[in-house]
Each structure stands twice: as structure tokens, then as C-alpha cells.
């Protein structure tokens, strides 16, 4: 592993694999240990992945908050898949967890207006019939101004 591109690829895959295996994302030192990287190199990669909008950290830290579509903190988007049950960041990401893990799963959320539960199932890459709509409050070009609110 030499180029920053190769390091970033290995770090990205390591973060996602561990996140999926353990249900929580790894710390940067755990990634460095697993990949045999000097700590500074792993930290540099984490920062590049943040700048590239691949990872989102808790403010002021290198602790992963989002490795989209996965969320490290509980949300109103719980996604059950054959691989495991995970938190997603929003309904796009909830479907994204299903897609990333093979196209079968159920996303559970609530209507923010009336708090009624909603179950959105996907089977063999097909969305099961479901009543509802999706809403984006923020136009696309402003999403990354505050990725926690879109």
C-alpha cells in the first residue's frame, strides 16, 4: 500500500467491514492496527475521507458518526437485513443499507407528522407496495452545509 488512493480504499473498506461486523464503526487506531498503518497515515486517510464526504465525524473528533448509509448513533431509521440490523441516516440511506447488503430488508421508521409507524420492505430488489412519500427539506446543493439535516 503506497498511494494515498490505495490507502484510502483500504481504510474505507476496513471501516465499512468492521461497522457491519460489530454494529459500530472502528476508531482510527483500530483501523491503523488492522491495516498495519502508522497512526498518522490512518488519521490522514480519515481526514481525506471526510473531505471527500465519504465519512462524517462527530464534530471536533475522528470518531465516525456516519459512514453513509450507516449511522453510528440511533436514528428513526432501523434497517433489518440478512446481514444484521443497522441504523441509517435517513430514508434514502435506509434503502441504501438494503441495497448495499444485497437487496433484501425492511426499513422501519415513523411518519414525522403523526408518528404512525411505517415499514418499507424490499424483496429481491423490489420495493413492496407501501403507502407514503419521501420529502427532502433542503435542496441538493446545500446538503453538505449540514448533512445531519436534509
Amino acid at each position: 500500500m503506497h498511494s494515498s488512493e490505495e490507502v484510502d480504499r483500504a481504510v474505507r473498506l476496513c471501516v465499512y467491514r468492521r461497522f457491519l461486523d460489530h454494529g459500530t464503526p472502528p476508531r482510527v487506531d483500530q483501523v491503523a492496527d488492522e491495516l498495519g498503518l502508522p497512526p498518522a497515515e490512518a488519521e490522514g486517510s480519515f481526514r481525506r475521507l471526510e473531505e471527500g464526504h465519504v465519512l462524517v465525524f462527530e464534530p471536533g473528533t475522528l470518531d465516525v458518526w456516519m459512514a453513509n448509509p450507516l449511522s453510528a448513533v440511533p436514528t428513526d431509521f432501523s434497517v433489518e437485513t440478512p446481514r444484521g440490523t443497522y441504523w441509517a441516516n435517513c430514508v434514502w440511506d435506509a434503502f441504501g443499507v438494503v441495497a448495499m447488503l444485497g437487496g433484501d430488508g425492511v426499513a422501519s421508521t415513523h411518519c414525522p407528522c403523526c408518528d404512525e409507524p411505517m415499514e418499507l420492505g424490499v424483496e429481491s430488489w423490489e420495493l413492496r407496495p407501501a403507502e407514503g412519500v419521501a420529502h427532502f427539506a433542503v435542496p441538493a446543493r446545500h446538503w453538505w452545509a449540514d448533512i445531519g439535516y436534509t
Partner: protein
Amino acid sequence: MLAFRGEAHVERWCEARRIPQGAVFGLDQAWGLGREWYADKLSPEWHRATPEEAEATWARLGLTGDFWRLA
């Protein structure tokens, strides 16, 4: 991006928060976003979509107009 039981629920929710309504679209389109955006996320070859690729993906799903422009 949130899921609502219907468009009237979006309207009520936005009114209660005094925020303008954004883009409302079908759950099938939301599933399309998840599928198109993330199906290859665990591939070593995955790369973040360029703005042009992103807009093309949204257009394929019928998500067009100023709301979906990145530039």
C-alpha cells in the same frame, strides 16, 4: 430526507415548523436513490459520484428541476 404517510402529512409538518416544503416524491423513487447510490458501496472500485453523475442518476429516477441541481 424523511418518509411520510402522504403528501398532506408533509404539508402539515412543514406548516407546523414554518419551513417551506422541499421536494416530495414517491417511495419508489426513494428506493431508486438507495439502490443507485449504494448498491456498489462495498466494492473496492466504488467512487463517489461526480456532480454530473449524481444529476444524471437523479434524472433517471425522474428527480429533476432546480431542487436537484448541484451547480
